[in-house]
């Protein structure tokens, strides 16, 4: 049994998103006899080294053939196994687009697809390995649950939780190795239920994935400027926790969405679509990746270039507040 204690939380953070995924995968192998793990030549990269050593017969490495991997996963799902499949997020969403659409969405087969290094996690390798549009694609497909965990402990909770649902699910992993810790202790995680991490009354930052930590830092910076700020961890993008979005809209003057993803089709679009159905809503400031490819570079360089740091967010929010 995985223990959610301070020591483990620190270790998972050091391991980073893939290491956390691998830890959860190992736990699943021990507790879910019907779980199988598929990868496309990313066994070690996705943190499955220990999994491979302990459960070699549960691991199917399909080679560099992601589209086939999705089809093979669908075969397992149809025969009532619980298939997890992983590859770079960019390949989940765009290279395998049709396989995901037909097998996971149309046929509603409960494949659990893990998108590694979503956002800028592999941005050093250039735009081919950046994944800044995967939420946009996945959420447009019926039946697919879309989750973007905030830190390494949440990754573990998500991976364990999705093994118990009958839904096809896409999990995008963001953040670097030695990943910032959002949750210092255990908490209650439920798919589709946002988590309030800070409560203020002027601004509410609705954040997902790696941007949850940045949002919390931003809230502290704003506090120092005399601005009271809430933070909502919107780990599940589909189905959206509409209740919490409406509540945030009612209680605050300004809403901010924060995502390591294009502002087209991601969390910003999701929140805006939900609110606009209800008529008028508070102003929404989108923090995300503008409609372009950032030059290849380190994770921190790309986050800075895209304005995805607490300092940059603080400035934008203060500017927006002045113009309300």
């Amino acid at each position: 049994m995985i223990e959610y204690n301070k020591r483990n939380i620190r270790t998972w953070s050091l391991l980073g998103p893939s290491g956390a995924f691998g830890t959860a995968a190992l736990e699943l192998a021990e507790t879910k006899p019907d779980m199988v793990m598929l990868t496309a030549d990313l066994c070690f990269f996705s943190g499955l080294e220990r999994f491979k050593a302990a459960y070699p017969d549960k691991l199917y490495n399909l080679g560099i053939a992601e589209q086939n991997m999705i089809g093979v996963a669908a075969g397992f799902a149809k025969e009532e196994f619980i298939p997890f499949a992983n590859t770079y997020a960019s390949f989940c969403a765009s290279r395998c687009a049709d396989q995901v659409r037909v097998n996971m969405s149309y046929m509603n087969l409960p494949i659990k697809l893990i998108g590694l290094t979503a956002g800028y996690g592999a941005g050093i390798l250039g735009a081919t390995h950046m994944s800044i549009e995967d939420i946009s694609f996945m959420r447009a497909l019926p039946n697919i649950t879309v989750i973007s965990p905030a830190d390494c402990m949440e990754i573990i909770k998500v991976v364990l939780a999705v093994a118990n649902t009958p839904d096809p699910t896409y999990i995008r992993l963001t953040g670097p190795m030695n990943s910032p810790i959002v949750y210092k202790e255990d908490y209650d995680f439920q798919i589709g239920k946002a988590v309030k991490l800070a409560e203020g009354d002027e601004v509410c930052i609705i954040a997902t994935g790696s941007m949850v930590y940045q949002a919390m830092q931003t809230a502290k910076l704003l506090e120092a400027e005399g601005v009271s700020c809430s933070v909502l961890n919107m780990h599940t993008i589909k189905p959206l926790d509409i209740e919490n979005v409406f509540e945030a809209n009612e209680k605050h003057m300004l809403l901010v969405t924060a995502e390591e993803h294009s502002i087209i089709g991601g969390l910003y679009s999701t929140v805006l679509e939900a609110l606009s159905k209800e008529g008028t809503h508070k102003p929404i400031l989108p923090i995300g990746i503008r409609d372009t490819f950032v030059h290849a570079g380190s994770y921190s360089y790309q986050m800075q270039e895209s304005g995805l740091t607490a300092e940059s967010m603080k400035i934008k929010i203060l500017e927006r507040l002045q113009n309300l």
Partner: protein
Amino acid sequence: MADRDLISKCEDAAKRIRRRIIDMTYATGSTGAHIGGSLSIVELFAGLYVGKIRYMADDPNWEGRDRVILSKGHAAMALYPAMVEAGIIDESELESFKKDGSRLGGHPSLNGLPGIEFASGSLGQGLSLGVGTCLALKRKNNNDSRVFVYLGDGECDEGSVWEAAASAGHYILNNLVAIVDMNAIQYDGYTTEIMDMSPFENKWRDFGWDVITINGHSIEEVLNAYDYRGDKSLVILAHTVKGKGISFMENNWKYHNASLSKALYEQAVEELEAAI
């Protein structure tokens, strides 16, 4: 070797299936249907559904069943009448083919119709599904069921087919049978002119498959091929005629997807009845 009684039973079924295909196409009116590639696959289905399939019509989810995957989903119009022959669906349901709200779509979908394992229609995906299903059956220690995946020769232009073929070879899936309906014509013309995949047999062998090449309209050859058991995945390369059985459709790429006027429908029926 296949016995004479079974051969003639399957041949009779093939005649009924072919006749139903003509009726179903005519009933679609001006919409038309994928008639050419449905007529080419008739004996391949008759041999399976009447001759060889492990299936219990009263228990569609029986674990011991053979799994059938129609990767060339546009041949659904031949699949449904073949399923009638096996008692999986009622003949009366064929009248609903391609109608609003029908379970019998132009491509198979997962809509409660028994006997359909997967939806298809987007070419190049069925063999991967077959590989996954075979691996899953082996995990379950189900050594009785086989997985039959029906592909078109034009479909084999898709790169994903070869990703799947490589993985079947890698995992040595002796419970996998791929059948390629080699009617030699795709949407825009002859496969040799559009995208020549020859030497086709060598490609499968090189990926680690056993290869049997047959006349796909000879029930005897079809049944014998289905009886083959080896240590590897098996591909049956079935040479067929697009539009088989109707003179004006045979080898005519215009009948890949077509409608039938009353006159042409009557001519087609006449030709089929003369053959009986």
